């Protein structure tokens, strides 16, 4: 069963880029990654799902119901964490969470306590006095306190330290095991890889691909950067599996997919000053996808 069904969703605004003809489904019980660079249209898509903005054309269904027409009903079962959280300053954490809970017709006080303990959040502080990371925690508790069936996260990890991030991911996995479906938007590939079953990759308002993480990992690209003592013709590395071959002075860089040993052997034969082997960042992955299309 699909928890989210997006059909040809389009949103155009005056100046800023919107989204064009977006379609994908999120199945029940999955952790679905939604990944793309800043400004690609992730937030636009999510905000449309939450009926914060209205689509120009196309539609989306959540729990099988139109997300605009049945918005209040659907939202009972949605937990949302925006990328930037700002809450009523003049309130204590406790009061804000109580206010948030008052919208759902169930007793959430126990869950609030649990979550706050887990996230190490002081309920008696004023929101004003909280650091960005702690405000984020308020956002997390606020989004999860009513035990939603669908959790929508828009770049949720910014501002959280690695330890908290880890705890937060564990929390999400726990919720997922209890049956919650999660839509996780991010521009950081590693966190999506860590958490998600499937991903949709969006660029410039269009879905580039929807793939299983495992498939993405099969296309495991490495980014090589080799600094040599004396200038070397970049063609030296022109072997099968090499992409985006570039040379700048004595530094040669390329993307490689395949058996790493073949490259390492080639490198071993030359005089190397410095060597970097990195995960390619998103832009480079996108480049790869665009090349495939061309």
């Amino acid at each position: 069963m699909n928890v989210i069904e997006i059909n040809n969703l389009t949103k155009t605004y005056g100046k800023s880029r919107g989204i064009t003809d977006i379609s994908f489904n999120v199945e029940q019980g999955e952790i679905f990654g939604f990944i793309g660079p800043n400004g690609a249209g992730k937030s636009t898509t999510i905000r449309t799902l939450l009926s914060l903005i209205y689509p120009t054309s196309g539609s989306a269904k959540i729990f099988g119901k139109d997300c605009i027409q049945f918005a209040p009903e659907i939202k009972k079962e949605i937990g949302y964490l925006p990328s930037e959280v700002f809450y009523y300053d003049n309130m204590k954490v406790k009061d804000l969470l109580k206010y948030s809970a008052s919208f759902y017709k169930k007793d959430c006080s126990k869950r609030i306590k649990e979550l706050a303990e887990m996230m190490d959040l002081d309920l008696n502080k004023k929101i004003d006095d909280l650091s960005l990371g702690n405000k984020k925690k308020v956002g997390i508790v606020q989004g999860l306190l009513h035990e939603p069936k669908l959790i929508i996260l828009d770049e949720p990890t910014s501002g959280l330290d690695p330890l908290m991030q880890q705890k937060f991911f564990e929390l999400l996995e726990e919720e997922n095991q209890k049956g919650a479906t999660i839509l996780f938007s991010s521009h950081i590939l590693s966190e999506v890889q860590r958490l998600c079953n499937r991903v949709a990759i969006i660029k410039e308002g269009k879905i580039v691909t929807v793939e299983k993480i495992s498939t993405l990992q099969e296309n495991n690209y490495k980014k090589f950067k080799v600094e040599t003592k004396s200038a070397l013709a970049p063609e030296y590395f022109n072997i099968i599996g090499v992409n985006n071959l570039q040379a700048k002075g004595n530094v040669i860089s390329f993307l490689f997919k395949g058996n790493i040993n073949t490259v390492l052997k080639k490198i071993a034969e030359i005089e190397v000053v410095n060597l970097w082997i990195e995960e390619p960042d998103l832009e480079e992955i996108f480049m790869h996808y665009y090349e495939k299309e061309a």
Partner: protein
Amino acid sequence: MNIFFHELKAYRKSTIIWTFSLIMVALLFLSMFPSFAKDADQFKKLLAGYPLAMRKAIGLNLANIFTILGFYSYSLSFTTLCAAIQAMNLGTGIVSKEVGEKTADFLLTKPVTRTQILTSKLLAAFTSLLITNVVYLIAANLIAWQVKTVDFSVKKFVLLSVTMLFIQVIFLAIGIIISVIVPKIKSVLTVSLATVFAFYFLGVFSETSGDDVKRYISPFKYFDNTYIIKHASYEGSFLIAGAIIVVAAIAASYMIYTKKDIHAV
């Protein structure tokens, strides 16, 4: 209901401050009444020296300024100006506060309709104004009884005072419509001060000509204190004009707000 109480609580401090300030303005003016009434003849001569147009512009009416109701209605024109700012602040803040404090995402992703949100906020703002007016009216009435030289009609006093609430409701409505139309209001106070003073001075100008039609331009002139003192009632056509503004502005606000895109900030 939870939104209503949350908003009401958020307004608590400003409501107390505004109510107190309005009472202070009334106290300041009314405490001058005894000495003013004592030297009535001298003041009359002095004031008669001003051109008629100017006297009208500042709302001076020599026929009744030396009665407590006349004097009070003169002070009321100042309290009403302040009260209009309070109402306009509330109205403009209803939607733009959510945008400014970036809490719109919080509220609008809860299982409530936008109509429910706007209604709750509107009612909370109106309740704040109502509380302000009730407390003010009681206080002003008490002060008036202390400074009066002869007894006065409480009915007329109430009728005069309630015009403040009417004008506040009009400015509340104007504030809401502005806050849903203007995409991002940086400072609520700037917008409300500018609007209120613009209408106030429009009112002053319309008064100088003595043309009744021009009075429709400014809500400040919908309630002619001299008329109220004389007839112990309001002018129907202006009541209707006020009601039309309020209903139109609020209806339009609902329509725009329910269709509006709430952008990330």
